[in-house]
């Protein structure tokens, strides 16, 4: 697997030249995630939504060494495979929540459990969500029971630049490093609109308006571009490099294309401004999050190749969310765009499949002929793309990491239960087996610890 890693080539070169203390280490806070060994596995007779658009009746899927080995109809099961009868059941890729605050906004909510907003300055690109993640957040297990195998955990939206996001494997763990998705690209959380201007405007500080938001965004990008320029110059002409700056390092990582932009942005017109800003500074916006008005500019977003991560149900909490409609994701999909259903919420994160079902039903009601095989992409393949992991997870294709969910029924139904969930071919959830239902440390000895919730 050939990837440059998290850091720009140029900063890597500098690290070698100047030394690790003053310059970024190769891979600080490196992932220690280990795939659990598990015997080969065959699910037979299930209806399989592969995440590529295919919808296979009476399908078989083979898993070996943590990877999808084969998927199709009429595949023979080799010896030595654990055989699971999938008749009457459905199989999908493990769900990916492209917008989660699990571990950084944990349950129970206490005065200090909100670790997701470093709302102290409009730009806190220097903070990393992984340094707030509490792996014992009981919500991780609940999301696992809902079939979620990978999550993007983001800082909040009070600041223009909230900080770096982190991509997690949804496995029981004691340290965040054990959960970090190996070699997943970093993201930076940006926020448009009401939240930053309300947070800082109320304190008499900039930004207090949307034009203030944009001016501060642009100032930050200018500084980042200049930082990158000075590093480049030091490398090419051997001069003094700039002093390492964590904030600018993150932003320069975006300009170099190594860090993905996750932009909380509701309104169509603001998205149009942000796209132009990307053009001004030569970066690409990966995903607009929430994006409740994406349907108004669906063809533009499809053309720009920007994903739209949104809800079906949520709307109306504030002015910029007033125009949200249930058909947002289906309309993006119909326009050829990358539609994602996300949660931003620990309750909804347990039933992303139902939220996708609501969107699907609304889309069909609007006359958009969308099959289950297509709609499942909204919570599998498309978020994988948004997270920069499309070549590894999100679809059931040979060679992909074997993240699977076995559903008791059509996953778009409220009646569907994730009966079993695998990550990298290893079982992480089984509704029938209490060994997989252990609650987080926090709930030990507390009311309801034994309940499946």
């Amino acid at each position: 697997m050939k990837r440059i890693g998290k850091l720009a080539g140029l900063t890597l070169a500098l690290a070698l030249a100047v030394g690790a203390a003053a310059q970024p280490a190769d891979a600080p806070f490196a992932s220690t995630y280990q795939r659990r060994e598990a015997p080969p596995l065959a699910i037979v007779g299930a209806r399989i939504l592969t995440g590529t658009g295919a919808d296979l009746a009476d399908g078989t899927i083979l898993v070996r060494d943590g990877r999808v080995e084969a998927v199709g109809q009429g595949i023979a099961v080799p010896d030595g495979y654990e055989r699971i009868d999938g008749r009457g059941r459905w199989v999908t890729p493990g769900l990916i929540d492209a917008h989660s605050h699990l571990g950084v906004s944990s349950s129970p909510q206490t005065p200090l459990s909100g670790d997701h907003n470093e709302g102290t300055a409009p730009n806190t690109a220097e903070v990393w969500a992984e340094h707030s993640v509490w792996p014992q957040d009981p919500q991780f297990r609940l999301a696992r029971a809902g079939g979620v195998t990978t999550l993007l955990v983001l800082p909040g939206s009070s600041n223009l630049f909230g900080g770096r996001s982190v991509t997690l494997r949804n496995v029981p763990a004691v340290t965040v490093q054990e959960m970090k998705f190996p070699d997943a690209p970093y993201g930076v959380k940006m926020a448009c609109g009401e939240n930053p201007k309300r947070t800082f405007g109320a304190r008499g500080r900039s930004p207090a308006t949307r034009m203030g938001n944009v001016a501060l965004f642009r100032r930050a990008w200018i500084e980042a571009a200049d930082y990158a320029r000075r590093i480049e110059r030091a490398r090419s002409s051997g001069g003094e490099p700039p002093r390492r700056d964590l904030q600018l390092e993150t932003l320069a990582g975006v300009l170099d294309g190594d860090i993905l932009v996750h932009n909380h942005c509701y309104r169509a017109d603001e998205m149009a401004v942000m796209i132009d800003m990307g053009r001004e500074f030569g970066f690409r916006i990966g995903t607009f999050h929430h994006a409740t008005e994406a349907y108004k500019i669906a063809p533009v977003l499809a053309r720009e190749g920007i994903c739209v991560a949104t809800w079906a149900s949520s709307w109306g909490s504030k002015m910029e969310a007033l125009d949200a409609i249930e058909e947002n994701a289906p309309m993006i999909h119909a326009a050829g765009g990358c539609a994602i259903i996300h949660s931003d919420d620990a309750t909804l994160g347990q039933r992303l499949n139902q939220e996708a079902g609501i969107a699907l039903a609304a889309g069909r009601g609007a006359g958009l002929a969308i099959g289950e095989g297509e709609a499942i992409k909204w919570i599998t393949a498309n978020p994988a793309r948004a997270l920069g992991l499309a070549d590894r997870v999100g679809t059931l294709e040979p060679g992909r990491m074997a993240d699977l969910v076995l559903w008791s029924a059509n996953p778009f139904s409220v009646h569907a239960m994730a009966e079993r969930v695998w990550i990298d071919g290893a079982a992480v959830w089984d509704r029938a087996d209490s060994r997989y239902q252990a609650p987080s440390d926090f709930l030990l000895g507390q009311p309801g610890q034994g309940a499946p919730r």
Partner: protein
Amino acid sequence: MIARLALMLLLSLAAMAAGPARAETFLIANARIATMGRAGTIERGSILVRDGRIAAVGADVAAPDARRIDAGGRIVTPGLIASGTGLGLIEVRSVDAANDRATRLPGISAAFDAGYGLNPDSLLVPVARLSGITRAIATPTYAEGTGAERLFAGQAAAVTLGGQPMLMRRGVAMVLALGEDGAERAGGARGAALTSLRAILADVRDFARRRAAYDRGETRDYLLSRADLEALVPVVERRMKLLVSVNRASDIRDALAFAREERVGIILEGVAEGWRVAAEIAAAGVPVLLTPVDNLPASFEALGATLDNARLLQRAGVLVGFQGNGNHRERELRYNAGNAVAAGLAWEQGLAAVTINPARIFGLDDRVGSIEPGKEADLVIWNGDPLDTLGRPSAIFIRGEAQPMRSRQTELRDRYLPAVLPSPSQGAEP
């Protein structure tokens, strides 16, 4: 397009200016009818609606004079009832001026009446209605920043989500927070909340007996204003129930004991740990309202939250009503019920928890909640399972009147849909 706009305008104007519109006589035939009444589910039957009420329901209903609506074998249910929402009182949550669910006015706590200030034009109403909700219990909440000395949020009102008037019945319950929030309002401790509550009810009883002395200024000092005292008289006289929000098992026990000792009627709301004391709740004959998808240990009073709550309470014999996800997300009420069914509750019980049960809990079952002769004709014809995401209403009637299958959100959708439709001829349904 203009014609449609004009039609909507006319409808809304007619609704606003005239009283209840004349409802026609019609027969919904060839339906699978989940009556939620004694008749149970009728696999293939008809419902006759006359003058806005259900005239007959059964397998064989003759009505040669009535317009016939063929349900094509689809399922018909009573209109759903959303319990504990801001429908009619709120437009945009973050916009104070568009939010009438709470007051900070000193002297008006129990006296605050959510039945005033209702907005039948609220854009939330059609959105909720399109998920089959035809009635709602509009409940007050506590204004942010109010704490001590505001124990009561005010009085809930039953409302109708179509036609005029919007107000169905005032004063269907008095809203009171106990548990963590109640403790905070009483200065930080649960014990203080229960103590002040007892003192207040003693005041109310005293006031009710001695109004004339009060008017002469010859009573002791009361803790509350006259308006609040007056508003609480029906509570101590057991004519109005207290809607008590409470979650921890021990708090539930305390609330039950309080109701028993003070001889007041209560409805429990929230009850995250209700399953742990289900038998006691059942023995007290107290109904509960809960949100069946609440399973997060979101606070120290809800550590025992579980998806099994509804099933276990129902099994113990408790009358259970379900709540939606609040205001703009009230339309998820039916999915919440579906999730309870997925977690083991019987389908009929899931449906009952959003129809007849809340009607019973709030004393509205003489008018709504089931498909039985004499009741107001709130009916929904469903295109699939009413509790599932893929099922959607195909027709909605309130008091016998067909409701428009449109909302601001379908208007937005239709404005932007052409840009993404492969062929412009494709039409949209709600």
